[in-house]
């Protein structure tokens, strides 16, 4: 009884809404800038309008890109919604719109999948239900919502949970022999950036890749705990800035380092956030001491408990599959495996008329853009999707129930490339599912001793 009570208290006791409001502001501004950048780079056209075909998410095969004008309108709406979130203006509506628009555009083509896009979808979904506009917002100032100072603790905590989860799982994913004992793929990636000022020359040495691999793993797994602890927090934040600064410089990961660096501020204390608002936007605080408990508490607690359980368990699903995770990619996505492997493939497709036996070689570029081709050529589910597309396309052209086969060579973490599966398989007869991909050849072993080249200093 006592335990239940203290648990209840830990979850629902009143805490300041300020950290949540700051996060709302940061997230809204970041999404506004990201969307603007996306439009500016011409990616709406390149990603959604120009391609002949799109690769679908499992279960979302019905999602097709809207016409060009509508896609631009959706991005315009996304800009407004992000701004609405930042300012806390018609917040719930803004959050719902942002979540729907963003998630829809992400679902159009899986080859553009990034863990951080998935993260944005998750966060914006959760934000719909959070009282992030209860203070320090236009809604509160204009009286559209009754301002309060305190909300339930889990309503701030769940945002911290999501951020901590990303770091922690990204770190756990790095606990594998290739990352730690072989410093792969950093041993490949770092020398390619030896022109970086200051750090660059050190990248030529394998030892640096080992140091970075271990540091990266420790950073990702441990940083959430150092951020949660009040005493280590300021130092941890400096490390966060350094880490995202370096990775942002080294790798083409766009807005992500900036978004994370700013979002992590949500770990700071209520007082810190209240002072922040007081100092920079003093007029935005509506003075009140009120506390508003969550509505429909039983329903919400149950739902969010399930949500958290799902998030905690889903990344582990790979344990249910046999074989090399990086090779087979059974359960690879939606699990915070970020910048984890260097993988590439070359896929040559052959389409054969089942009756006449005449066989053509496919020039992938006729159907796919460079990015789609690159992603498809190393991911088994996308290879199948493309094969099925080719089957249907050529069947429509009058080829009798085409046999689609492919010669795919994949290289993983610097291994010499090897055949991904039998070139004689009729891919048009294979379906992707939750079942293990037994049609793939097993991953070739890494042909080098651990700690290769680590002493290569002098």
């Amino acid at each position: 009884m006592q335990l239940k009570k203290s648990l209840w208290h830990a979850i629902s006791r009143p805490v300041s809404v300020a950290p949540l409001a700051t996060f709302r502001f940061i997230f809204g501004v970041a999404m506004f800038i990201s969307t603007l950048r996306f439009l500016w780079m011409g990616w709406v056209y390149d990603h959604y309008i120009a391609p002949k075909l799109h690769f679908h998410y499992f279960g979302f095969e019905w999602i097709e890109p809207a016409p060009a004008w509508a896609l631009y309108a959706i991005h315009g709406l996304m800009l407004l919604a992000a701004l609405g979130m930042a300012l806390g203006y018609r917040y719930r509506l803004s959050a719902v719109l942002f979540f729907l628009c963003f998630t829809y555009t992400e679902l159009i083509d899986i080859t553009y999948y990034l863990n951080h896009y998935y993260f944005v979808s998750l966060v914006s979904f959760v934000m719909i239900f959070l009282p992030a506009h209860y203070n320090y917002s236009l809604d509160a100032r204009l009286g559209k919502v009754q301002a309060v100072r305190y909300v339930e603790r889990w309503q701030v905590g769940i945002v911290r949970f999501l951020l901590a989860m990303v770091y922690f799982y990204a770190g756990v994913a790095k606990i594998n022999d290739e990352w730690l004992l072989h410093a792969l793929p950093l041993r490949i990636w770092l020398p390619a950036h030896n022109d970086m000022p200051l750090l660059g020359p050190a990248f030529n040495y394998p030892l640096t890749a080992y140091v970075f691999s271990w540091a990266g793993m420790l950073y990702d797994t441990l940083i959430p705990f150092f951020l949660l602890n009040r005493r280590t927090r300021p130092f941890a934040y400096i490390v966060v800035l350094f880490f995202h600064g370096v990775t942002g410089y080294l790798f083409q990961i766009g807005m992500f380092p900036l978004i994370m660096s700013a979002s992590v501020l949500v770990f700071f204390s209520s007082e810190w956030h209240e002072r922040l608002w007081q100092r920079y936007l003093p007029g935005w605080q509506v003075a009140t001491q009120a506390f508003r408990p969550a509505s429909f508490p039983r329903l919400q607690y149950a739902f969010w408990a399930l949500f958290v359980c799902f998030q905690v368990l889903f990344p582990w699903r790979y344990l249910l599959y046999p074989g090399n995770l990086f090779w087979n990619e059974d359960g690879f996505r939606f699990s915070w495996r970020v910048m984890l492997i260097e993988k590439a493939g070359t896929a040559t497709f052959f389409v054969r008329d089942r009756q006449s036996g005449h066989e053509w070689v496919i020039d992938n570029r006729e159907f796919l853009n460079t990015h789609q081709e690159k992603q498809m050529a190393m991911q088994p589910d996308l290879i199948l999707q493309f094969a099925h597309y080719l089957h249907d396309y050529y069947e429509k052209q009058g080829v009798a129930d085409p046999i689609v086969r492919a010669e795919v060579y994949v290289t993983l973490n610097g291994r010499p490339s090897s055949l991904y599966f039998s070139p004689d398989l009729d891919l048009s007869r294979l379906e992707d599912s939750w079942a293990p991909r037994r049609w793939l050849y097993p991953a070739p072993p890494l042909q080098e001793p651990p700690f290769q080249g680590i002493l290569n200093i002098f």
Partner: protein
Amino acid sequence: MKKFPQQISLAIIVLAYLLGLTACNSKKENSPQNFDRRGLLENVANNLISPAFDSLHSEAKALQAATQNFVNAPSLGTLEALQTQWIQTYTTWQSANMYNFEFLIEPNTLDKSLFEEIGAFPVDSALIEQYISQGDYSFANFNRDTRGFLAMDYLLFRTDGNQQAIVDAFTNDNKRGLYLKAVADHLLAKIEQSRNRWLEAKASFIANDGTDAGSSLTLLFNQFNLGYERIKNFKLGIPLGKRAPLTSPAPMYVEAYYSGISLDMIRANMKAIENIWRGVGADGQDGLGFQDYLLAVPGGKELSDNTEAQLSIIYQKLDALDKQTRLSTLINTQYQAVEALHNEMLKHTRYFKSDMSSLLGLYITYDSGDGD
């Protein structure tokens, strides 16, 4: 306050590490993996691309002059001179036709890459004849298969080798000569344009020596690969009937069908690709190329060896084809031998394409990364 000294000592360790490695770096020439990317770009720019555009340009001028001579006075003599010059110019083209960088395209025009502007094949002979009969030499249309090198191949050669018939065609219809002249002028103009833009861009091409998407190395890598695939897909795949909707071999779709020099051109083109791989300049000097870069990274030796082994198989298959016979004939008579060359080129793709970019850590496209 107690933490402070610890932080300082950590900072000192990190600094010492960096300084230590940097110091080693400057002392030793052959430190692990310090490949001179700028050196590669300099070599390719100065010793491969520039000479390629230079000789293409002077050969195109000579071609224009020979065309003028022939059109002024069509005869067996002037025709032969022009044919010889055309073969010479077109051979030079094989060392330049892979450099289709986007920055070489005249901005704010509807122009396409130099290859698409002057290298398109097969040509549409019926449309060429139609333009000639209409006296339309404006090229104010998007039918790029009615001009360029291969339009001259069609106008200047006959598969039956009847030279007199070619001369007669020009003597009997001066519009034919005007069209031919327009093609040669257009060819030179386009080449001049690309060459000028290259000379302007060269310095920044060399300076852009990173490995990110948009860096010169990735741009070169892409053109190198596209050049290779063009041989495989267009010069061999299509005439072999490997591309839908062809249901049988299409020998008339070979490159340079009328002059019949297809095989020589494949060889020259392949050699040029190989020179980028090895970094061999126009003067035969072996400088830095992709192969040298590979040899400087772990695992690169094995890939380099595999690449070399497959390259020699490709040359074996190429050598196995009878040099005295036209490729279009070989496709009819020795289909399997030609197909074998195509197959070996297919097998080779992965070495140049995904294996190399992966091992070198080149970002081939924008927005392909994902990070924490």
